[in-house]
């Protein structure tokens, strides 16, 4: 008799008083709490009222027999333990009872040892069942907990996707949209309901859609894209600049879908445009200040000139009159230079691609400055690449850039004209492999300090005092840029300066090239 047995309360049903008395006595001695019933009906009532752990019932009883009691009890409580007591050799009833779910059957006359074994087995079954139940409950609890954790994680992830400021769109392996966050709606305009299950390629420009179209056939070998800028079209037709990044989603090397991210660049583009505008305004302000400075100097020259002219007239002094007139004429020239520089700086002119010979243009410009160079004993040398030949570029731009840089080079030598050094300006041309021609203007003149080099291409910077408008290099750089070229400078104070600019050319002038910008 184990102390942790499950069976404590036993209901005993038999119509024979003697058997009831004997059996109940023997069970009580074994420590059970026994209640007895003299009929099937009474037994069923007691079962309902007392919920015994085990029922022992005789089969043959007047009124409700044992089989009927069993059926009723099982209907009330499928797990109830019921042992049937059958007459000797009453196999049919025994089989029927087992079919109906009886735990066991024992034959009359009931022997104590047999009864004890049957009760022991029922006890074991109960113990196992209660263990199973505890186990099941524990499992259920674990499942519930895991489910809750999963739900929490899933919620966490969907909140994460929802709250992303960037658009996130995910598809299944057939490229059908399955995730489409509010950020995506802000860019593309469609609601999730409208877009759900549609193919992602329908809402993307070709260059980006191509990445997705290749995915299903890629057998899991596809790799993520770089971040690229592109323009998507929203459902209202607005073209929206975005930064795009797409990646395949794989599971065990097999494609399971795709995810793509889109950063809205509208605000950034707007700020960039604003900044550009502000910079332009600042540049205009600086330009105006620079122009005003230039005009003040010119006015001073005119005043000085007219002062001398007036003096010359008043005193009948021809020398003063002529000097004054000279000043006025020089300032007319300086005014005209400033205006021409300003005009070429402000002009937005279309490129004029025509067949030309860059080497011939170099010689032309050289001719222009030869007199000045001779006057100051500056040697001009040319080293022209015969491969340059005839190409298609804008000869006006080339002419102006060359003449600006060459007269700068001469000025650099003029600064120290009293020295007996042999001043030299060299002009070189090279035809490059990438359809560019590079021009070098090299002087061994005064050179420039790093500070001066830094300011070189900024507005109105002149080291030439009255001789420069401060616009020459600014204009040169603008022209080179308009021709999609590059310009660089290398210089050392006292050693000289090299300006290099490279302009792209076309091998043949096409009819359409005339106004290409």
């Amino acid at each position, binding site marked *: 008799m184990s102390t942790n047995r499950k069976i404590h309360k036993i209901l005993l049903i038999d119509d024979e008083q003697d058997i009831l008395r004997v059996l109940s006595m023997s069970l009580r001695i074994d420590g059970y709490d026994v209640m007895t019933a003299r009929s099937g009906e009474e037994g069923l009532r007691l079962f309902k009222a007392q919920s015994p752990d085990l029922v022992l019932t005789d089969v043959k009883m007047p009124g409700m027999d044992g089989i009927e009691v069993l059926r009723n009890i099982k209907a009330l409580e499928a797990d109830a333990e019921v042992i049937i007591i059958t007459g000797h050799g009453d196999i049919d009833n025994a089989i029927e009872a087992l079919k109906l779910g009886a735990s066991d059957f024992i034959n009359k006359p009931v022997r104590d040892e047999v009864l004890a074994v049957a009760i022991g087995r029922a006890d074991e079954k109960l113990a196992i069942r209660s263990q199973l139940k505890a186990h099941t409950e524990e499992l259920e609890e674990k499942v519930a907990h895991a489910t809750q954790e999963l739900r929490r994680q899933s919620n966490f992830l969907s909140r994460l996707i929802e709250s992303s400021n960037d658009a996130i769109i995910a598809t299944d392996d057939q490229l059908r949209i399955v995730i489409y966050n509010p950020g995506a709606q802000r860019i593309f305009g469609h609601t999730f309901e409208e877009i759900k299950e549609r193919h992602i390629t329908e809402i993307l420009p070709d260059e980006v859609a191509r990445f997705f179209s290749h995915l299903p056939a890629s057998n899991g070998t596809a790799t993520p894209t770089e971040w690229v800028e592109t323009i998507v079209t929203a459902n209202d037709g607005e073209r929206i600049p975005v930064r795009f990044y797409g990646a395949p989603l794989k599971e065990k090397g097999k494609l399971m879908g795709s995810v793509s991210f889109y950063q809205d660049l509208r605000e950034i583009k707007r700020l960039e445009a604003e900044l550009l505008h502000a910079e332009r305004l600042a540049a205009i302000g600086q330009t105006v200040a620079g122009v005003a*400075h*230039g005009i*003040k*100097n010119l*006015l*001073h*020259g*005119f*005043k*000085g*000139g007219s*002062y*001398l002219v007036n*003096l010359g007239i008043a005193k009948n002094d021809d020398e*003063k009159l002529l*000097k004054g007139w000279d*000043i006025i004429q*020089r*300032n007319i020239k300086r005014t005209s230079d400033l205006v021409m520089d300003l005009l070429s700086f402000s002009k937005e002119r279309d490129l004029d691609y025509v067949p030309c010979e860059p080497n011939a243009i170099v010689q032309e410009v050289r001719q222009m400055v030869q007199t000045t160079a001779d006057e100051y004993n500056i040697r001009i040398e040319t080293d022209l690449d015969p491969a340059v030949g005839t190409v298609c570029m804008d000869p006006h731009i080339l002419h102006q850039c060359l003449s600006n840089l060459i007269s700068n080079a001469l000025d650099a030598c003029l*600064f120290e004209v009293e020295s007996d050094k042999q001043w030299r300006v060299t002009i070189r041309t090279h035809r490059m492999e990438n359809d560019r021609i590079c021009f070098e203007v090299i002087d061994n003149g005064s050179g420039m300090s790093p500070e001066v080099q830094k300011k070189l291409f900024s507005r109105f910077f*002149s*080291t*030439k*005092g*009255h001789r420069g408008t401060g616009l020459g290099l600014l204009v040169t750089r603008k022209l080179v840029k308009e021709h999609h070229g590059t310009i660089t400078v290398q210089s050392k104070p006292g050693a000289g300066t090299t300006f290099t600019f490279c302009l792209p050319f076309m091998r043949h002038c096409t009819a359409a090239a005339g106004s290409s910008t």
Partner: protein
Amino acid sequence: MGKKVLVVDDDPDVRLFSVTVLEEHGYTPLEATDGEQGLAIVKSEQPDLVILDVLMPKESGVRLFRHIKTDPKLQKIPVIILSGITQKSFLRSQKALTEFGGAAVPEPEAYLEKPVEPEELATAIRNLLH
């Protein structure tokens, strides 16, 4: 012989203008075409007044002015700045040089912004050389 006035300007037209005004008013003009030459003449001739441009090749007027005003032998010589640069920019660049570790310099005795009338220049000269 009138008082000596040095005109420092790289623009010959501007020099001619100032020199003529000086001659008309009985002064003896001296000329320098840049700051370097200007400093040499200031030292050798000890003029009574300097008329100084700001933007010049080699040593600028900003530097020459500092040289004159920080040299005990020269600092008493009055200086008229005659420039297209505004007085504000000139003072700002002096302030920047002082902050950069230079000695503090006084403001120039007179500041004339181009363009200048001959009478204006003559008055400024007369005020400093009475």
